[in-house]
């Protein structure tokens, strides 16, 4: 069975993002990581309002500007052009990370290389000798933001489990992840370890267990 058929059976990137968006309460202040997490902004549920924070100094971030309207001095943490909504504010980096470290951001959605059953996250370095290490704001976000959601494919392209007993890649933070959205399932990190919250259509609990590198409990 190839990876591409797996993807068809489970949730798409956009569906994972939509599931995550639905779990964010109205009025939350949200920081979205680079990559799939950015898609979350497209799925704000009807009747809810999120306030987007980008760590490079903007609260009240709006959507991508129209082509031709980009301002190279109005960008997000991924260095892509964004807009500012009415009620936005600009601030410097120390103030921005005071928001993060001080627990003022409600939800952060991040990508992952590995997550362990106790919520450890590895998402910044493969630890390879030749790699250029780059951490950005990930280590600050996982320590400071109240809820850390992860969106990731359940397995690597080569089929290795990304949800593991213990991360083998260098850690971003210890015990920081609360919920994981994969193509196969929504999985909570609980004191007892991974627990399925919801299975993707056509995906069995057994398949999730098989493709997870650590014990997984069924939905409570």
């Amino acid at each position, binding site marked *: 069975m190839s990876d591409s058929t797996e993807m068809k059976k489970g949730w798409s990137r956009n569906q994972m993002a939509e599931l995550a968006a639905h779990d964010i309460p109205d009025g939350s202040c949200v920081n979205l990581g680079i990559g799939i997490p950015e898609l979350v902004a497209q799925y704000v549920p009807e009747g809810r309002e999120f306030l987007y924070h980008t760590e*490079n100094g903007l609260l009240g971030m709006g959507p991508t500007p129209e082509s031709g309207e980009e301002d190279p001095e*109005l960008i997000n943490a991924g260095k892509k052009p964004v807009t500012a909504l009415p009620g936005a504010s600009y601030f410097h980096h120390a103030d921005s990370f005071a928001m993060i470290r001080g627990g003022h951001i409600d939800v952060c959605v991040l990508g992952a290389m590995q997550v362990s059953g106790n919520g450890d996250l590895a998402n910044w370095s493969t630890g390879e000798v030749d790699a*250029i*290490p780059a951490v*950005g*704001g990930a*280590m*600050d976000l996982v320590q*400071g933001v109240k809820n850390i959601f992860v969106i990731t494919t359940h397995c690597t392209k080569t089929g290795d489990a990304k949800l593991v007993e213990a991360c083998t890649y260098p850690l971003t933070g*210890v015990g920081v992840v609360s919920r994981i959205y994969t193509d196969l399932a929504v999985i909570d990190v609980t004191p007892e370890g991974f627990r399925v919250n919801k299975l993707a259509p056509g995906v069995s609990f057994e398949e999730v267990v098989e493709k997870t590198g650590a014990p997984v409990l069924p939905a409570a």
Partner: protein
Amino acid sequence: MDKRIQSVSEAVADIQNGSTVMIGGFGEAGSPIELIHALIDSGARNLTVVNNNTGNGEVGLAALIGNGQVRKMICSYPRSSHSKVFPELYRAGKIELELVPQGTLAERIRAGGAGIPAFYTPTTVGTPLAEGKEVREFNGRKYVMEPWLQADYALIKCETADHAGNLTYNKTARNFSPIMCIAATTTIVQARKIVAPGDIDPECVVTPGLFVDRIVQVAEPLQESKLIAEGVSYP
């Protein structure tokens, strides 16, 4: 106390070999590209540079690095879609890297300017970046001690400056600049506009004048991404 200087070359002329230089900007937003190019022209070498990144293409910060003037980078994210100069030198062992998480980098810079030699942060606890650092428990949670970061010079781009050095910035080009202004012994600023004292609303001043030493006007600064798209390489 008129802090205006005529040219970018004059503004950076006294930066010596071996200096620590903080450079404002997050990617190209807020990068003082004309001051950096003046520093390339000045030829100062063996620099320690503090910036969130390591530059893009072969202009601005990347060009300074590519020109072999930087001994060590202190940054949080030394790669990007357009960065190649730093990775090559790093892999060749020709440049040092101190990797600091972005929020810790910001707070260390602020602490440097605020006279706070060290502080505790939860960031990096339990990760390789905490290795060798003091870990201490407060209220049942572990924190890492981090030292301040200070510099001999800061190179800053702002939107509007008055003669006395009061500054405002433009949108997310603000980023690290206000804290770098306070952490450097000598702060050198390029401003799109220079106005008379009183022309900036005192309620809206982001960097008060006492943190700024030299101001030079660059009315129409080069834009890094445009230079890269045009294939420009500096010098």
